[in-house]
């Protein structure tokens, strides 16, 4: 599983990234967690509000910080 956190490095991006790390750890799953902070790539991905979260290329959250419980639900599919 590839999880991408898209954002230019603001505090909310950092909070979302940390929550993703916790959710992955608590679920006990193996996942590659990547920060995407290149503005061109974020634009090309169609993100209008950051932070955003993509799982295996599919955009799941945009413009807010999902908490750990919500992220676990998203990652469980």
């Amino acid at each position, binding site marked *: 599983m590839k999880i991408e956190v898209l*954002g230019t490095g603001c*505090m909310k991006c950092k909070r979302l990234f940390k929550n993703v790390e*916790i959710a992955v750890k*608590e679920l006990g799953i193996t996942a590659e967690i990547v920060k995407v902070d290149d*503005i061109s790539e974020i*634009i090309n991905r169609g*993100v209008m*509000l950051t932070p955003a979260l993509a799982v295996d290329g599919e955009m799941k959250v945009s*413009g807010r*910080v999902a908490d750990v419980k919500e992220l676990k639900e998203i990652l469980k599919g």
Partner: protein
Amino acid sequence: MASRPECACGDTSALAGGKRRIIFPCAGTANVGLISNVAALQLALEGYGVATCIALLGSGDPGLKKRIAEADEVVLIDGCPMTCGAKIANAQGVTPAQHIVITGLGIDKVYEKNFTEDEVELVVSAAWEGRGRPGETHAR
């Protein structure tokens, strides 16, 4: 050409389905009460919600009650197991979506004014993580 994405820092989360939150610290005078105040202000700075005085809630202020009714969530930060903030909220008919008790995060209550940035960060991150939601655990 695509427009530049907007950062959701500040209070724009509601535009993207995020929560409009009101944050109440217990505002006690022991270290954990002081931490509750600073953590609430830090959360407000980070765009998590609006920090508001628990004493105003206790006064039954109708303007605040209207704001609470219009918000999506109330987040309550109590310093210790006395949960004075939760008792005030309950007396005013307010049910928090998230209730964080700072001593439950492993910070001891002492009657001193000293606290650290790391202790404040522990509380702030607990709110972002949603550790105070029903069914969630304070310990991680």
